[in-house]
């Protein structure tokens, strides 16, 4: 790829010291996000997907590794530059009920980042807020209301409007639809697709819902216990997963077709505690393909068929099926 990716993350590690030793919430993760692209990060609770997002956003400091935004290294920029980067990356949180200040009117909530960044007259500010509200499918007069007057779906639209206020290049979406009903979830996903088409913004979409990934993302990264186990284009990864964990994850998703219910397969056991991390491959204790080597040696991430990263000694496929 000749063009510089919007976001490049290189060997990112985030460790937390605890009473019982060091926990690597994110362990040597490498990936990139291109312009106007959606990359999804999936995994079960505790796999480090939210910590990864917070580190990219600068809300957590990386223990090791590099985050490069549009060719600029995040680590060696001063606070002033940091603010500028802050305008390039924005976030929408999972629960809009707790992400919005109940004491502020919607106009003030969306206007706050604008006020901080630019010196706008009141009229200009109101016009900009009105445009943002219209963009996310609400009406300009909504700016005079308080958050409690809105439904969950509408609040999430307001969160999105706030995140888009400074015209960021990258939007981090941390489980933005997990707290919403399916019919509302569909509306929000549609809105996100529409905004990407119109504004050319990139998304880093964090979720545990594989169905949503299939719908919204171009590429997907699967994480397990802080490590990247597989990454690549959604179609390839979902149609022919290479890592046994990806396969297991896909097999665990219930289908909408009752006649296909026997396809649901279960893997035994649960995600181990990150404190007692198994030596070798973290998935080995639950993996039906595991051999001796998997239990002692950590598999490195390798590039499979040119487009896909896999960290496994015995990948399920070695070449892309045509």
């Amino acid at each position, binding site marked *: 790829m000749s063009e510089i990716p919007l976001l490049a993350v290189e060997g990112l590690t985030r460790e937390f010291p605890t009473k019982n030793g060091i926990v690597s919430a994110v362990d040597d993760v490498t990936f990139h996000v291109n312009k106007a692209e959606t990359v999804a990060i999936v995994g*079960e*609770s505790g796999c480090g997907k939210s910590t990864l997002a917070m580190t990219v956003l600068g809300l957590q400091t990386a223990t090791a590794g590099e985050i490069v935004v549009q060719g600029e290294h995040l680590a060696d920029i001063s606070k002033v530059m940091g603010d500028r980067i802050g305008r390039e990356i924005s976030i929408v949180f999972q629960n809009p009920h707790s992400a919005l200040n109940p004491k502020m009117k919607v106009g003030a909530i969306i206007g706050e980042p604008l006020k901080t960044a630019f010196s706008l007259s009141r009229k200009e500010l109101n016009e900009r807020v009105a445009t943002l509200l219209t963009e996310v499918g609400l009406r300009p007069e909504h700016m005079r209301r308080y958050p409690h007057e809105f*439904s*969950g779906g509408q609040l999430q639209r307001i969160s999105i409007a706030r995140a888009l206020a400074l015209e960021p290049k990258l939007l981090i979406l941390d489980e933005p639809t997990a707290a919403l*009903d*399916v*019919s*509302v*979830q*569909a*509306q929000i*996903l*549609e809105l996100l697709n529409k905004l990407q088409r119109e504004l050319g913004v990139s998304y880093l979409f964090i979720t*545990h*819902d*594989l*169905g*949503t990934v*299939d*719908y*919204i993302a171009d590429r997907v990264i699967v994480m397990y216990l802080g490590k990247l186990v597989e990454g690549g284009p*959604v*179609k390839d990864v*979902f149609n022919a997963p290479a890592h046994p964990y990806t396969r*297991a*994850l*896909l*097999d*665990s*998703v*219930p*289908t*909408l*077709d*009752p*006649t296909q*219910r026997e396809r*649901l*397969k*279960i*893997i*035994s056991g*649960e*995600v181990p505690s990150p404190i007692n991390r198994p030596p070798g491959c973290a998935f080995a204790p639950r993996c039906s393909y595991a051999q001796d080597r998997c239990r002692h040696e950590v598999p490195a991430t390798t590039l499979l068929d040119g487009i896909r990263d896999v960290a496994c000694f015995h990948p399920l496929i070695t070449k892309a099926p045509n």
Partner: protein
Amino acid sequence: MTEPILQITDLRVEFPGLVRNVKALRGVRLDLHKGQVVGLVGESGSGKSLTALACLGLVPSPGKVSGSVKLDGYEVVGRGEPELAHLRGGVAAMIFQNPMRALNPFFTIGQQMVEVIRCHRPFGKKEAVQAARKGLQDVQMPDPEIALGKYPHQMSGGQIQRVMIALGLACKPRLLIADECTTALDVTVQAQIIVLLRELASAYDLAVLFITHDLSVVATVCDRVAVMYAGEVVENGLVVDVFADPLHPYTRKLMSTVPTLGRADGELESIRGQVPDLALPMAGCTFCDRCDFATDVCATTPPGMQGYRADHQAACHHTAQRVATE
């Protein structure tokens, strides 16, 4: 057919409001026979959890309940606490959405299980401990003996949900009400619990009322499904029939809004508008404002539940016409 284990007829629940009363349930009708796993689906506020609470006489004050709920032939509506005590746990048990909050953090799993078992059965302490251990074995808990001595915070969400199921089944109920019992779990653990519930239901000939907002979970677990909207059951039938050909426009819409694996190319539909305010009087069909097929009759006359195919009912004025033209 034999007498149903759970028979809900014209169940209504009303909460007094400042201006108007909120009619949270508006005539729910549902039967559950033994060995059946019935899914109750709907969006937030459609009344699925309230229906479950009403089955055990747990509707919070000041809610007013009318209609009839028969548990194993015994009328629940209008009964006082002492009369209901033996039904709860004994005839019907309930597992809740957030298992972490359902257990007391100060007592071990064993202590809490023994307490429940001794409330309902004439067991000594030793027998009760044995029953608890057996219960944990039945839900495939790894190391039941160790699990008995653990406190809730020492277990994972999936393990606690197994404990809750074991607790629910400890007194051999005939009906298990599972309220969003897999919602808080990760997908691989959800799959484990789903398979476990299916095995238990067939092993004990247990009737299960499975409440969820996740249609794919219903498709995977349940034999029958009842779809709720705005405090009513709008469609009811065998899972295979309802998912293959939903009769009510709401069910159709709901299914097309679910992003599923391998359907990425299809447009994801969304339902326009919002769920109606349950405090306002509704003359006609509760879904008519959001429905693509709505006509004048929908706004004025409430559609009753009507049977179409064998064992498949829906409450819609236009279903008959649609089925006839197909």
